[in-house]
């Protein structure tokens, strides 16, 4: 398996992660209404993707690894979608 790993990639990833941390804290102090949580989650997803692609080397990995990574999050999506479609609609008449 190719290890896509020059120091520059790691340092740039780290810098981007710390910048996104500052951004998420800054955004929390601006009133965006319901978009505060959406913005925070989008930034967290961006950080997660950076870690998965560059620190966990999924970017240079074979397709089997991509499938394994996607599977965990896909099943998480099923759990949230089915559960919330119940809890979020209980008030509907």
């Amino acid at each position: 398996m190719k290890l896509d790993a020059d120091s520059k990639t790691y340092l740039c990833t780290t810098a981007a992660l710390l910048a996104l941390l500052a951004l998420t804290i800054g955004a929390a102090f601006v009133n965006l209404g319901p978009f505060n949580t959406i913005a925070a989650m989008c930034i967290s997803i961006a950080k997660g993707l950076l870690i998965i692609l560059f620190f966990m080397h999924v970017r240079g990995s074979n397709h089997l690894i991509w499938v394994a990574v996607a599977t965990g999050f896909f099943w998480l999506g099923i759990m949230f979608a089915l559960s919330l479609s119940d809890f979020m609609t209980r008030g509907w008449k």
Partner: protein
Amino acid sequence: MSDPAATHAHQFDDAMQQREAATFGMWIFLATEVLFFGGMFLGYTVYRFAYPEAFAEASRHTLLSFGGTNVAVLLISSATMAFAVRAARERKRTALVWLLLTTAALGTLFLGIKGFEYAHEISEHLLPGKSFQFGGAHAEMFFYLYFLMTGVHALHVTIGVVLIAIFAFRAWRSDAFAQHDTPVDLLGLYWHFVDIVWVFLFPLIYLIDRHS
């Protein structure tokens, strides 16, 4: 990129296939971890939608400076871990030992900061139970989820720190990963996963309605 010096078990064609199988297995384990933490994130989501005001009020009483510092600590520890994995791959033993020790030290720092935070919260009567004194049952649910999720996460960090220390010791003592560095790879995957969990926990716990 097959390495003729590396050994592999007889059921694999070569060392590279063995490494890929091990990495695949680790990702299957991490998928179960995603669902394990996912159940708690789901519970959090349901209760936060049910009691948004109580969750916002409770969240404003968490220690943002501590939580934010801990994000930075774990992100930097992930970087040192990534460098450690590369050092193992390149057979740089001294660098591997020091990078692992730095990662373990940062993990310990995370736990120390979290410990101060817990001590502060317990002294403020924010631990759910008989001594809980803050708002009503809905705020108590926030702090119940807070202690549960950060506690399970801290357990994962503790396991990681212990494993990293053992790996550093083995690399230093017997150069254990010179011919077979896949275990360091897998340990790195675990550590990065623990980092990702905190990346998602942080805004959900510390950053609800900070602007009001």
